């Protein structure tokens, strides 16, 4: 029985659902607790730190020999700004750690932190991407507030605009967000008095990279540090950046020769973890009379906060936006300029989809606006421009493997019964009710390895994954991976892949992850990569091991290895009833190794790596919304997804990824927003003010699948972790604009809060009233 393709239950869930999983916060007993003293102001000069007598408090001055966080992009426009682990001399955002207090309990540490006063000579903060060319530098002495600037031009953009039948320009605003993992950050640094080694249990998506980074920062041999990611309650990118707090903990454990813990609270997470997607785009397109987009011109700006996040740097948002703006649309005359601007706000890190929710919003709003302007059906305009021959090479040089862009849109339109919807919309409008429908067609670049990351010129270039597979004498296998799943169900799906190759059941495969002592060096889990890359490596290792088992079985059974089939826990000579239990073969390999062929390695082991260029998933999202004209409130009444992620290893897990992603996308579209005031104070530091949607706000999400299999992924599976989030905001904002089209209202800003939607309606009403 093959397991791949079947929705077996997640092996991770029993422990999670019964509260037996161990998260970082479950590991704090017998540790000292720390609390960070954080800057209460956005910008200024530190003139003193005063703590109550007898307080165990450390500031930057105490951290001798400790480096700064300073990730590197090898680009001439990239500005390097070192981030001290604790603020040194200046503070650069509200919430920046200035000192650390150690006490017997977190409550006591908070008491002492509260009584530790930081004297700061305040300065006017630099806020918003509009400070890009200010004479005042966010970081005094630095060359520019523009810390990364990408620009490119292909073809003859000016000529296309000059000859265009229609030029459409829109502005898009995405407000700042927090990835909002349910478990905030946290770490426990345990000191081992026997050998002085430190074990850091940390809520992270990238244990190996974290180990490298922290060992370098505190100047210790990497082998003296073990990093373990226990159960992790969501990351969404926020935990693939290095928190300065984790490095401070390791330093403290070494310095104090004690175990110390820090469990971030929600307020700290909102203030000082990482933010994302504070972006402003102006996008212009030239169309010919038939609706073919001849040229695309983008001017993109990202507010990337006070410091560059390690390892991906503060170039990640602007440069991804630049490289992928055209999305699924074929346009060869492309010009773009994209900047990252440093400000006195919390640093940016990647968040599920990174810039793609915003660029998809831009392209999909553009399509709807252009269609309305040109009197075309918006789906026909898309059809005229969607990539439909493969492999496709984009204007930015990216190669798209085969996808189903047009087909996904057509399937989605069929599922929502567009004709029936338009009739219902008319009827309801006569009753004063406004419903609307919005489409979003997009590509999702996934599973990209070192070749693709190398194009970003990162000093630290991620990409490959390595796995170690071994079979024990009982015939069960252990798969040790460098990926670091934290909710994706990878233990289940990888065990399905490996079990199928070896003729075992998934339960016979133990997946070990998230422990630098137990797993090969790897990059962790992010960027919709683990099923493609770690899954590919796992399949290769399992195939190698299967070959070895067939070979041993062939000599045991006096048959050709090519004739041996592994199934149901047995190695069987095809077409016969002759066979041997895989467990017996494993015994032989370990305990009767003299019976193996001369020179053969005893035991059963395989190591494999995989490092693909990447593949493209794609999908079409459709949102149906109702807008309350009096209040501006938007209800999402239906949400349809037609997704093409290639082979589905476990369809239930795929659907879960899509549903979760769409939920975060709707959150982006309607609810979640980090707000700073004009003094740089963050106003959204609790769940009273930062509003993730609840189950009441999210409709049941209807998911349909297409399965385009390409050789860009050896398993046939394409990544899909981010797609839900990428497509949903555009579908929702297009639906709002459709609902209000009879009033002449269009929305271009997310989240489209009731206040913003109502303001747009009010403006339209005022125009009508004159």
């Amino acid at each position, binding site marked *: 029985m093959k397991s791949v393709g079947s929705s077996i239950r997640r092996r991770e869930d029993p422990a999670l659902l019964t509260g037996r999983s161990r998260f970082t916060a479950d590991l704090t007993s017998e540790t000292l607790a720390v609390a960070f003293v954080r800057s209460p102001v956005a910008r200024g000069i530190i003139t003193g730190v005063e703590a109550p007598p007898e307080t165990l408090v450390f500031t930057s001055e105490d951290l001798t020999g400790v480096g700064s966080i300073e990730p590197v992009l090898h680009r001439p426009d990239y500005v390097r700004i070192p981030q001290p682990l604790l603020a040194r001399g200046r503070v650069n955002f509200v919430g920046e750690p200035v000192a650390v207090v150690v006490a017997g309990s*977190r*409550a006591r540490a*908070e*008491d002492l932190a*509260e009584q530790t006063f930081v004297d700061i000579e305040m300065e006017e903060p630099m806020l918003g991407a509009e400070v890009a060319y200010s004479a005042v530098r966010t970081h005094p002495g630095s060359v520019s507030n523009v810390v990364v600037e990408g620009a490119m031009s292909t073809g003859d953009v000016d000529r296309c605009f000059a000859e265009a039948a229609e030029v459409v320009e829109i502005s898009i605003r995405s407000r700042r967000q927090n990835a909002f993992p349910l478990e905030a950050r946290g770490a426990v640094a345990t000191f081992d008095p026997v050998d002085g080694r430190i074990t850091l249990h940390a809520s992270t998506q990238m244990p190996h990279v974290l180990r490298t980074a922290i060992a370098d920062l505190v100047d210790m041999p990497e082998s003296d540090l073990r990093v373990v990611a226990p159960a992790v309650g969501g990351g969404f990118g926020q935990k693939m950046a290095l928190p300065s707090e984790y490095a401070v903990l390791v330093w403290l454990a070494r310095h104090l020769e004690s175990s110390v813990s820090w469990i971030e*609270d*929600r*307020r700290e997470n909102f203030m000082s973890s990482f933010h994302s997607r504070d972006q402003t785009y102006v996008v212009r397109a030239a169309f010919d009379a038939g609706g073919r987009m001849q040229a695309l011109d983008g001017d993109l700006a990202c507010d990337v906060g006070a410091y560059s996040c390690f390892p991906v740097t503060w170039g990640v948002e602007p440069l991804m936006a630049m490289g992928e703006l055209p999305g699924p649309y074929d346009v060869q005359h492309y010009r773009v300029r994209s900047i990252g601007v440093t400000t006195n706000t919390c640093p940016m890190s990647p968040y599920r989809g990174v810039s793609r929710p915003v660029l998809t919003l831009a392209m999909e709003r553009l399509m709807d606006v252009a269609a309305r302007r040109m009197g075309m059906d918006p789906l026909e305009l898309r059809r005229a421009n969607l990539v439909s021959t493969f492999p496709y090479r984009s204007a930015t040089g990216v190669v798209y493997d085969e996808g189903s862009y047009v087909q996904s849109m057509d399937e989605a339109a069929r599922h929502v019964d567009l004709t029936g919807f338009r009739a219902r919309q008319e009827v309801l409008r006569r009753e004063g009710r406004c419903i609307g429908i919005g489409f979003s067609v997009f590509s999702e670049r996934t599973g990209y390895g070192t070749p693709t990351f190398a194009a970003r010129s990162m000093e630290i270039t991620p990409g490959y994954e390595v796995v170690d597979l071994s079979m024990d004498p009982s015939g069960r296998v252990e798969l040790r991976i460098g990926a670091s799943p934290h909710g994706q169900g990878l233990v289940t799906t990888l065990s399905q892949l490996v079990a199928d190759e070896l003729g075992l059941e998934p339960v016979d495969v133990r997946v070990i992850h998230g422990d630098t002592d137990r797993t090969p060096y790897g990059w962790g889990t992010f960027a919709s990569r683990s099923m493609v890359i770690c899954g590919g490596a796992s399949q290769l290792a399992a195939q190698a091991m299967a070959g070895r088992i067939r070979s041993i079985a062939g000599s045991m059974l006096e048959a050709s290895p090519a004739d041996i089939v592994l199934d149901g826990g047995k190695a069987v000579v095809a077409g016969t009833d002759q066979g041997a239990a895989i467990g017996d073969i494993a015994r032989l390999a370990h305990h009767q190794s003299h019976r193996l062929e001369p020179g053969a390695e005893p035991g059963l082991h395989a190591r494999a790596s995989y490092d693909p260029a990447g593949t493209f998933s794609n999908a079409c999202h459709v949102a149906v919304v109702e807008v309350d004209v*009096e*209040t*501006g*409130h938007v209800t999402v009444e239906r949400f349809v997804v037609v997704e093409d992620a290639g082979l589905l290893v476990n369809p239930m897990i795929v659907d879960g990824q899509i549903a979760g992603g769409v939920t975060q996308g709707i959150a982006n579209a309607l*609810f979640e927003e980090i*707000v700073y005031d004009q003094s740089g104070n963050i*106003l*959204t530091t*609790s769940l*009273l*003010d930062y*509003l993730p*949607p*609840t189950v*009441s*706000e999210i409709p049941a999400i209807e998911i349909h699948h297409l399965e385009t299999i390409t050789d860009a992924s050896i398993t046939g599976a394409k990544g899909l972790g981010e797609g839900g989030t990428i497509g949903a905001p555009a579908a929702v904002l297009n639906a709002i604009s459709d609902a209000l089209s009879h009033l002449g209202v269009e929305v271009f800003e997310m989240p489209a*809060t*009731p*206040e913003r939607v*109502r*303001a747009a309606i*009010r403006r339209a009403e005022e125009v009508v009233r004159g």
Partner: protein
Amino acid sequence: MKPAPFTYHAPATVAEAAALLGEDAKVLAGGQSLVPAMNFRLARPATIVDINRIRSLDRIDVGAEIVTVGAMTRHRRFEEPIEPGPLGRLLAMAAHKIGHLPIRVRGTMGGSLAHADPAAEWCSIFRVLDGRLVATGPEGSRVIEASGFFDTVFTTAIRPDELIETIELPRLADSYRVGFAEFSRRAGDFALVMAAVVLDMDGETVRTARLVVGGAADVPIRLEACEAALAGQSLTSDTIGEIADLAAESVTPLEDIHASVEYRRDLIRAMTRRAMAGAT
């Protein structure tokens, strides 16, 4: 997110509780507002007087004219009408809008009134019903009328050494229609604006009206101009629209990150209109 140090008392009687209260003490009822405020260290009482063990405070007595509610009665008790008339209906309409189920299971009517968050449903309801309450302190008990209860945000006529013992709400004759509407960002959130209306009807004509807007200003606001304008009118959609416009003009709303002054006026118009149109 850990509270500052405090001492904790759990008295068994109102008299014991009153004896423990004072300037630096806080009463812990359902704790749904106080505990988060303490965790944020926005509230840092030196003494907590937990009244959850005072059994006599958890009761509802339905009298002929008045319903007497013990201060510790949980929100959830009002989800089903506590009496068959318009009062029970209005309380149920509002109770369903309070937070989420776990909040309604813990939170109390007395705690909500004492906390006096202008966006709390019970504050608007208390005001629109012209209720009164009994506060008890070291010198005994006194009655406070709804009209003189709310001073400003989180501030009431209750003295630091008093606690609310009971709340008295008048029952309404069957000639009354009641309505309630509120707008919040998500299900269970604090309202950005709410409106409560109590209409004494003579057939299809309004005899007298009481209209309150909550969440818009520092205290629940009685809209007396609207009430006067409603008297003698029949509830056509035109009349309701005019009264809603008047309501929006007669309040100067607060501004916060979720709603500007202009937007809150729009919401006042919408919620007062819906409360009146939906009154049953």
